[in-house]
């Protein structure tokens, strides 16, 4: 990383972190820059690594059928022409249908059949493992019953579904524990970047602090004057 890169990336990191103090123009500027740069990046990649090789170069090679994709793609832009904006639904319908078809098979094979199959576990032998397996089967059955909304969950059904809620709560707790690790990892990553050059970070941090102070005072004075 060259010096210019270091100064710019550190400055932008601090601009975003300044939001922790309060929402301010530096944060807004960096936020808008982020949206702009990422949108520009995605568009360039969509062109360079999908539209150009899979459409333009294929058609140039004589694969005329591929022009169908171009027609569908261009139809998307009819939404800007009110008279024919209904045509923009065609490509959308095509893609939604494709995802719907893919999902039917994907969820059935990946999440339903194999998950059910692997819950057929030994609940008799092997001591402690069998106990855990019994808890697993009870947990899965009661949690599934909690998701059964066709009958009011009262009486025995209510008791069983409450046990299901307990299992779901433990699984949400586990997710929360892992989420903490994810979030902390990102903060650790950024902290490391800021520690690459403490002098650069120190100078820019001071600059951001001075800006926030001056801007805060101006805000207060215009607020009082209003």
């Amino acid at each position, binding site marked *: 990383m060259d010096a210019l890169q270091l100064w710019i990336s550190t400055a932008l990191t601090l601009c975003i972190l300044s939001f*922790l*103090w309060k929402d301010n123009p530096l944060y807004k500027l960096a936020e808008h820059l982020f949206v702009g740069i*990422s949108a520009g*990046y*995605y568009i360039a*990649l*969509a062109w360079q*690594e*999908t539209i150009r*090789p*899979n459409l333009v*170069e*294929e058609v140039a090679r004589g694969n005329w059928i591929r022009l169908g994709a171009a027609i569908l793609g261009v139809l998307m832009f009819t939404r800007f022409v009110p008279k024919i904006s209904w045509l923009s639904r065609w490509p959308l319908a095509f*893609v939604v249908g*494709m*995802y719907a078809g*893919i*999902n039917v*098979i*994907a*969820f059935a*094979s*990946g*999440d339903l059949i*194999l*998950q059910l*199959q*692997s819950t057929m576990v030994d609940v008799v032998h092997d001591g402690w493992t069998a106990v855990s397996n019994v808890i697993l089967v009870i947990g899965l059955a009661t949690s599934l019953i909690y998701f059964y909304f066709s009958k009011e969950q009262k009486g025995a059904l209510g008791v069983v579904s409450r046990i299901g809620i307990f299992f779901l709560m433990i*699984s949400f707790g*586990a*997710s929360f524990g*892992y*989420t*903490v*690790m*994810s*979030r*902390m*990892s*990102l*903060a*650790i*990553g950024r*902290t*490391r970047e800021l*520690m690459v050059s403490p002098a650069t970070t120190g100078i820019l941090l001071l600059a951001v602090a001075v800006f926030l102070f001056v801007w805060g005072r101006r805000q207060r004075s215009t607020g009082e004057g209003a």
Partner: protein
Amino acid sequence: MTARRSWRERLEFIDRRWLFLILAFAIVLPLVVDLPLPLYVSPMVQDLYDAIEDLPDGSTVLISADYDPSGKPELEPFHLALIHQLAEKKVKMVMYSLWPAATPITEAVLAEAGLTTDYGYRKDVDYVLLGYKEGQQIAMRSIQKSLKGTFPVDRDGTPSNEIPLLQHYDTYTDFAMLINVSAGSPGVKEYVQNVQSITGVPMVAACTAVSGPDYVPYYKAGQLLGLAAGMKGAAEYEKLVGRPGLAMAGMSAQSASHILLIAFIVFGNVMYFLARRSGGAR
């Protein structure tokens, strides 16, 4: 004029910026003064390492790196250690991404691992970088039909049909293993649903910690042969590969920030119960 707040109320309604500052210290201090702590390897990560170790030397794997800069602290250390483990076994690699921002990270990881310089891997012969493809699950299903059809050219623009390594590899089941480094969707879940469950290709994955618990069912059902979740999973994997890196180095900061968070939860609840006892519960 409002009445003076008691010390308990002042603590309960403390300006959150103080909390931010305490967290910042909890992260920075362990990064400056590292505390050596024991690192326990969980069965999920051990299985992942073993599955890769069991690959025959010289076999070819498919790697889909699906993350962006926000996932780097969690996944890049794993990605780097993965390249080392595969390269030491002389495993050939075909790499691509279904996330637009991932390819520059892969390029940086390959350079840092010294794939061409230290391990002597030759481009297009021992490894291929196909770049990015749009379409998410549609792209996954399209690769099942034809990898070369989905990626007519590689990252540099070389026609796939002319790449020597790809001569005998065109669909998932041609490869010895599918390895997914994933920060979300499309990623592990979509690969398990659309590829592993349908083709049966052996698959291992690394994911962000936030997704870890959601993917445990796939690991327990044998759909994933191993799983490394988050920075901790990456640290365990670095330990197994024998390449201590940024994930292991981050474990002290993780410990401090986790303990701080637990302390905040406990302290917040003590305040809450004290308030309830004095009749001010909300």
